[in-house]
């Protein structure tokens, strides 16, 4: 179970409230949702392609990604996941994993048995609806990634990814003003954007030289000019379907 008294900081509550309102009862139900919490190292697989998981995994702290390694050894990262995400929610209905899920940095994850999730959804059908909404938004993010990787140039493409991560992290309160944690190496960024590490590195230098962003070695990105970054990325946040939080 999640430590008591953490209703406001429970990552699943923060995440779900970023896309739909929750009632007090629903918030309480989430806080008491039983899960087994584990600390994982960086670059550790949570589930692998072809596995048949019997539980779902909630990211509590850290960063994870969905990925696939092609037969030639090249890796494609499909999506990045932040606290409050349940990246393998699909395993409730799709028995065999068609990709892998792994951590990018040291992370804390909560494992919830499928049966528990199913009972939870039956007891709180509106949360089931919100999970469905989240799954649809997940698909919307994939559509945007297809357009991004398929049609945008490296500069716009990487700028777009920064805009997306900033909006998503801000929605769950993990930003610090215009700064946000992005503990993703250039090689991982290359695997996510379908570019070579060298081109990613060069493009990052261009983005910094244009005064759009600042980065630290510890993986903190600061957006120096949000308007200009969005313009450079052709970024329209509609696809994230974020809901404004009640103050």
């Amino acid at each position, binding site marked *: 179970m999640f430590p008591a008294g953490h209703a406001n900081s429970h990552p699943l509550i923060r995440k779900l409230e970023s896309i739909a309102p929750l009632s007090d009862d629903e918030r309480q139900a989430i806080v008491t949702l039983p899960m087994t919490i584990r600390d994982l190292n960086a670059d550790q697989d949570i589930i692998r392609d072809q596995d048949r998981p019997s539980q779902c995994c909630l990211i509590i702290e850290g960063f994870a990604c969905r990925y696939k390694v092609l037969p030639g050894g090249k890796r494609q990262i499909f999506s990045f996941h932040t606290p409050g995400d349940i990246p393998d929610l699909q395993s409730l209905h799709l028995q065999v994993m068609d990709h892998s899920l792994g951590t990018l940095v040291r992370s804390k994850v909560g494992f919830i048995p499928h049966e528990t999730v199913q009972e939870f959804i039956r007891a709180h059908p509106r949360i089931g609806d919100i999970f469905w909404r989240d799954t649809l938004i997940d698909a919307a993010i994939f559509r945007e990634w297809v357009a991004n990787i398929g049609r945008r140039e490296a500069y716009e493409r990487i700028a777009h990814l920064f805009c997306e991560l900033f909006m998503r992290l801000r929605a769950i309160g993990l930003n610090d003003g215009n700064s946000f944690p992005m503990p993703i190496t250039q090689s991982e960024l290359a695997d996510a954007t379908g570019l*070579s590490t060298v081109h990613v590195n060069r493009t990052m230098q261009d983005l910094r030289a244009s005064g759009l962003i600042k980065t630290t070695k510890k993986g903190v990105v600061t957006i120096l000019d949000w308007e200009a970054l969005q313009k450079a990325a052709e970024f329209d946040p509609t696809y994230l379907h974020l809901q404004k939080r009640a103050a």
Partner: protein
Amino acid sequence: MPRFFFDTTLNNVTEPDREGVELHDAKTARQEAVRATAEMAKDLAHRSPEQDITIQVRDEAGERVGTVRLTLRIDA
């Protein structure tokens, strides 16, 4: 892993790489330079159809590891 630097010259304007990228070995660095050259050409193709792109790869000691050159020309 050793660090390699990729100085890029686009139509006679050189941008030195001040950061470098950590890669397995010199062979990987040359392969990465080929990929990066092709990606830059793809990005630039619809802005200007004719391009001269050169990436010079050097190691941490400043020794030349290899040079990749790509020229795009339209013969009409």
